[in-house]
């Protein structure tokens, strides 16, 4: 889980980062289950894994995929001019 | 009754403001009514007494009463207020923001009376602040350099007011009472540190309003920038509220203090310096308003010195000067106002030879300026003489020298003023100028004549001053101090003084009439060449007058002194503060991430220092 978290933070490609957060949630929900919290596990699985990830992905689609957007940034600015 | 009077003032102010919006004439009428009606009620009905009205707000008793001392000051306020309200009607005709002028005028009269009747610090402070902001509205009414002059005035006022506020909450916490009398009676019960702190804070508070030296820099601009009809109130009555406070503090507090004499000497010297420096500044002014403004500061310096010395004679002198200064300075400001109204300018360089155009203005100015300069037959002389004598009795010879110097120098500006406006070249440009309307000249003349009367028969005032001084703890004198003074004891026994005075007055009157007719006959038109001196090419406005650089040699002599303006230090301080503030606000970088880091840093700091915080 920690590895996934670090990956999510370090990864430049936001799509992968988001999927990594989804994986965190997935592991988390399993851990919840182990910790005798099935309700929370179910919720985390549904919200954390599915919904949050999807909303993130849609946002990324609507905006920009790479964290390091320097070249694209230039392109857009020049295009705007 | 007292409450009713104050409420009439307040309601009158608002009604006038509204009335002015409806119809100018209605506004004028309401203005007169709402100044004169309550003022009359005040004079007729409010007698000296301890508790005339009492209210309770927020569990604090607001007690209103009238002490003999306050009674003396209230006469000045009411008299000046009524005179100037009549004057203002004509003066303000055709100007902008008349409604606001009326509003502030009435409010400040109300506030001053309120200060005088306050027997507790809270109402004192409330009225003090109302006075401050109503006069602030006046200062910026003309809309000239509003930001610099107005803010300067307000900042200094706030400095004073907040010093007072701080002093009074400390008093309350130590003595458990906001009453003035409790403060003075139980002053000994304060801790030694507070015994020093409180008088000093209060001295700052009142020093600001009475324009004592390091705190004076708001005054010249504020005086000269407010409408003339109000400047008379400003300099004549409003600044006297500072003096009123100083009297209370110095007499009732510092006398109970071991270090009190030191404080008083310092204040006395500050007053002396103020008198001297302000006089020098007045000399160099080329504008009647500014000249009078500086002159007012100088006169206040005399008063402060007198109060600070605090011997009976000095006190008598100061109190006397309080009254007559209000009279003659009021008259002079009115005169300048009349000139401004009639010619549109108050610059010596532009206005000349009005003596024939505005004779009444000239006569009242003459009387007042003589009083101002302290020439014997008129009122200014009486007070100055007493002050010198008091200082000599007190062995403050250096201070006498300083004040004497100031007083002598005052001749220079007095002459400059008189000459600048009324004498000299009559110019075609001003040919159309008429005497100001009656409603302006009559108050002016009345004040000047009162000055004259008081100068001749100072005993008229001594009774009031005497009861005021008894209230402050001085022995009853019944005006003996004056008749006992050196002036009388040296030759008073031998020569009947009155005839001498009359003779002098006669000479002066003759001189005045002579000047008047001379001015009428010997109108001499000067050409440019007459005044062009070697190497200096005269500018256009220099053409026809020799008043420009009137005092040039003198100015050059005092230049090094003038250069060291205190104002510059204040400005530097202000600039420095603003730069600091600007630097500080860069904490808010605009980057959300930085803010988040601040939050975490704050958390970490609290966690690290939690032991020292919570044990």
């Amino acid at each position, binding site marked *: 889980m920690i590895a996934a978290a670090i990956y999510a933070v370090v990864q430049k490609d936001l799509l992968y980062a988001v999927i990594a957060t989804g994986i965190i949630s997935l592991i988390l929900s399993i851990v919840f289950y182990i910790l005798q919290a*099935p*309700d*929370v*596990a*179910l*919720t985390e699985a*549904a*919200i954390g894994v*599915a*919904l949050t990830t*999807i*909303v993130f*992905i*849609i*946002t*990324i*689609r*609507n*905006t*920009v*995929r790479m964290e390091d957007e320097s070249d*694209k940034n230039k*392109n*857009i600015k020049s*295009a705007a001019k | 009754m007292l409450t009713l009077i104050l409420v009439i003032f307040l309601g009158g102010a608002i009604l006038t403001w509204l009335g002015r919006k409806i119809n100018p004439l209605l506004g004028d009428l309401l203005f007169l009514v709402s100044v004169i009606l309550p003022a009359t009620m005040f004079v007729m009905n409010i007698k000296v007494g301890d508790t005339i009205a009492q209210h309770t707000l927020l569990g604090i008793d607001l007690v209103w009463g009238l002490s003999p001392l306050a009674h003396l000051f209230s006469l000045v306020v009411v008299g000046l207020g009524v005179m100037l309200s009549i004057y203002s009607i004509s003066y303000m005709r055709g100007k902008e923001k008349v409604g606001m002028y009326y509003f502030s005028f009435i409010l400040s009269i109300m506030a001053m009376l309120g200060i005088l009747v306050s027997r507790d610090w809270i109402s004192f402070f409330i009225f003090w602040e109302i006075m401050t902001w109503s006069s602030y509205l006046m200062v910026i009414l003309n809309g000239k350099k509003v930001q610099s002059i107005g803010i300067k005035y307000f900042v200094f006022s706030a400095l004073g007011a907040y010093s007072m506020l701080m002093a009074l909450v400390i008093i309350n916490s130590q003595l458990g009472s906001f009453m003035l009398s409790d403060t003075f009676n139980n002053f000994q019960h304060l801790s030694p540190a507070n015994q020093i702190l409180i008088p000093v804070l209060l001295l700052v508070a009142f020093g600001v309003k009475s324009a004592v030296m390091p705190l004076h820099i708001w005054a010249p601009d504020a005086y000269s920038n407010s409408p003339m009809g109000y400047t008379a109130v400003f300099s004549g009555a409003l600044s006297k509220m500072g003096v009123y406070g100083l009297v209370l503090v110095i007499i009732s507090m510092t006398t109970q203090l071991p270090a009190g004499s030191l404080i008083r000497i310092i204040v006395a010297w500050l007053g002396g310096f103020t008198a001297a420096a302000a006089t020098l500044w007045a000399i160099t002014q080329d504008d009647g308003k500014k000249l009078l403004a500086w002159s007012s500061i100088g006169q206040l310096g005399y008063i402060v010195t007198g109060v600070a010395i605090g011997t009976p004679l000095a006190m008598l002198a100061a109190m006397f000067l309080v009254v007559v200064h209000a009279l003659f300075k009021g008259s002079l400001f009115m005169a300048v106002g009349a000139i401004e109204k009639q010619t549109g300018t108050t610059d010596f360089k532009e206005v000349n030879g009005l003596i024939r155009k505005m004779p009444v203005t000239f006569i009242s100015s003459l009387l007042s300026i003589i009083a101002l300069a302290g020439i014997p037959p008129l009122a200014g002389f009486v007070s100055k003489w007493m002050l010198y004598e008091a200082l000599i009795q007190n062995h403050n010879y250096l201070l006498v020298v300083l004040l004497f110097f100031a007083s002598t120098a005052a001749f220079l500006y007095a002459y400059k003023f008189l000459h600048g406006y009324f004498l000299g070249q009559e110019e075609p440009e001003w040919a159309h100028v008429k005497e100001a309307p009656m409603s302006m000249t009559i108050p002016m003349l009345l004040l000047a004549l009162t000055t004259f009367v008081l100068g001749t028969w100072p005993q008229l005032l001594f009774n009031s001053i005497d009861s005021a001084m008894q209230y402050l703890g001085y022995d009853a004198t019944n005006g003996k101090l004056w008749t006992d003074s050196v002036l009388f004891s040296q030759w008073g026994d031998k020569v009947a003084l009155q005839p001498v005075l009359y003779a002098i007055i006669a000479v002066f009157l003759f001189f005045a009439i002579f000047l008047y007719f001379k001015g009428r006959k010997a109108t001499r038109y000067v050409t440019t060449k007459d005044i062009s001196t070697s190497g200096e090419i005269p500018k256009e406005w220099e053409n026809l007058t020799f008043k420009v650089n009137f005092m040039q040699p003198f100015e050059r002599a005092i230049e090094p002194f003038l250069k060291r303006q205190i104002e510059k230090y204040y400005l530097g301080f202000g600039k420095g503060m603003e730069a600091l503030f600007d630097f500080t606000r860069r904490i808010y970088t605009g980057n959300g991430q930085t803010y988040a*880091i601040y939050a*975490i*840093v704050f*958390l*970490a700091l609290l*966690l*690290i220092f939690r032991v020292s915080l919570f044990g």
Partner: protein
Amino acid sequence: MKKVLVILLLAVVGFYLADVFIGIGFGNDHFVKSDEIKPVKDIYLQQTVENLKVSNAVTSIVVNFRGFDTLGEVTVLFLSVTALGSILYRKRHHAGDRSVLFSASSIVTAGSKLLFPPILLLGAYVFIHGHLSPGGGFQGGVIIATGFLLMLLAYENYTVSHNALSIVESFAGITFAVIGLMGFMNGGTFLQNFLPVGTLNDLFSGGIIPIIYIAVGFKVAAELTGVIYTVLNEKGDQKNG
């Protein structure tokens, strides 16, 4: 440089947090040992069985003991839908201008169509049985929303009526609030149970708990679908991707 400082900073904060929590200990009874301390969880566990006849203690807490929290929580979701709508609102509304994540193949579309009913059913099951087994309104609602999500992704022109969503949402919310107020009328306190509790482990047990949870389920489903729908309809001015 900044990174190092931040890491140091985080180390400080982390140290204190870890210190605290490790001090508290894992897996043991961490409450302060004192006669005065009676953890409310024990009361909850006891009352769940005895008075409410609800098997799932979490459900009984969420819906009954701390039902007020849940009302607030539902409101938060409701608000975030409203907020989303307000934040992303634009005057020119391009209908059908939905952003496309991927063009779905026919297998996906067919599969989605096939999966959609079971997902809905599963969701309904989960929230109806919320008081008996793990799960409940939230979980069921989320599952239903996932079903709609699937359809939205699979079919480019699949639309959900905004009005229908808000009607469902509003009715569910109103049901919750009205049941609360009915408790207020009947029992004197808001959200008080006023129905017979039935027997433990029975579908119709727990008084108002199942009703509220069903309402919550509908509401959550509608709201989450609303969230997805709103975001999905937001076609950003992207130039790449």
